[in-house]
């Protein structure tokens, strides 16, 4: 696998708490389980979280700032996932701030990972539009914008899409997270089409993740939902991974409109 085949994808949103870290952990795990060699890079320096989502918090010895400042080699700092062979995490530093790393250093790190034969490098971006955002996007060649079907989140997504364009990250992918099918059906919540409509045609819909308790329980255990069978959010994340690999996978048939979600839940034996 030549280093030119490496996909470098930043996961961003502008607003905090919309599901960037959850998405990074799940897509990364799903891709690795499909045989990709995946490095996850936590660029949220000062607010380390991706380690928790993956259940790797007790295994951290070195972090990204240690690597950048020369106290550790990249390979020493990379943590191999417990369950998934092809998955590695470069943790953020918890006690430093975003200025501890600069865009040139991020590009250097990513170059090293490319040379190590990773096929996917996925970067978990901090909230905000300041230096943390510039660091996280510096070495990326593709971007995923995560939004919730909710006003302020969509507004921030729009702003981020503009900033990504300015960084030459055009036509980002869009993930709508925490969708509540019943509310959409009752026209109480923005539908995916509404979100796409207001954000415009420059974004490509990559996936829709329903609001799902499994995200909370699986994060509590440090096992991304994508590794668990029989839940919709995990299924949706696996579908996203397949789409990223170039497969055409139908959306979980816009779960919201037809009551399909309920039927699917019925299939999985969940009582609701």
């Amino acid at each position, binding site marked *: 696998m030549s280093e030119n085949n490496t996909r470098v994808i930043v996961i961003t949103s502008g607003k905090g708490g919309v599901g960037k870290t959850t998405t990074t952990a799940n897509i990364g795990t799903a891709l690795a389980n499909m045989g990709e060699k995946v490095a996850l890079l936590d660029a949220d320096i000062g607010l380390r979280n991706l380690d928790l989502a993956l259940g790797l918090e007790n295994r951290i010895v070195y972090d990204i700032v240690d690597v950048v400042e020369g106290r550790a080699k990249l390979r020493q700092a990379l943590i191999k996932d417990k369950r998934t062979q092809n998955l590695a995490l470069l943790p953020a530093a918890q006690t430093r701030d975003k200025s501890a790393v600069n865009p040139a250093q991020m590009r250097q790190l990513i170059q090293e990972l490319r040379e190590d034969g990773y096929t996917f490098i996925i970067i978990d971006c901090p909230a905000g539009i300041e230096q943390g955002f510039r660091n996280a996007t510096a070495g990326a060649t593709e971007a995923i914008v995560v939004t919730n079907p*909710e*006003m302020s989140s*969509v*507004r921030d997504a*729009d*702003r981020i899409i*503009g900033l990504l364009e300015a960084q030459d990250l055009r036509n980002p992918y869009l993930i709508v997270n925490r969708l509540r099918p019943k509310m*959409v059906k*009752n*026209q*109480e*919540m*923005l*539908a995916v089409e*509404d979100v796409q*409509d*207001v954000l415009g045609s420059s974004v490509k819909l990559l996936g829709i993740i329903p609001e799902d308790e499994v995200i909370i329980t699986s994060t509590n255990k440090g096992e991304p939902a994508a590794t668990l069978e029989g839940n919709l959010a995990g299924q949706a994340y696996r579908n996203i991974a397949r789409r990223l690999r170039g497969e055409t996978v139908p959306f979980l048939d816009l779960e919201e409109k037809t009551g399909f979600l309920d039927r699917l839940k019925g299939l999985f034996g969940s009582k609701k």
Partner: protein
Amino acid sequence: MPSLFERLFGKREKPAETAKNRLKLVLMHDRADIPGPMMEQMRQEILTVLSKYVVIDEQHLDVSIDKADGGIALVASIPIVRVNAD
């Protein structure tokens, strides 16, 4: 769920619709990105020109960006106290 009244006498806008309309408007505003100082300068210059002809209630002058069919519009509401006599 719409009430019988709403079903009989026209429906109220759904929350999702309200959200979408408000979002469209605020995004147009965000994207237009007219800086505050420029807005203020425009306001001042509009005032200067109009003051030649009318006395304006400056307290209630309102210049804002709004939605027009298919695009955005600069909308000014300019309360006139009286027309200049001379």
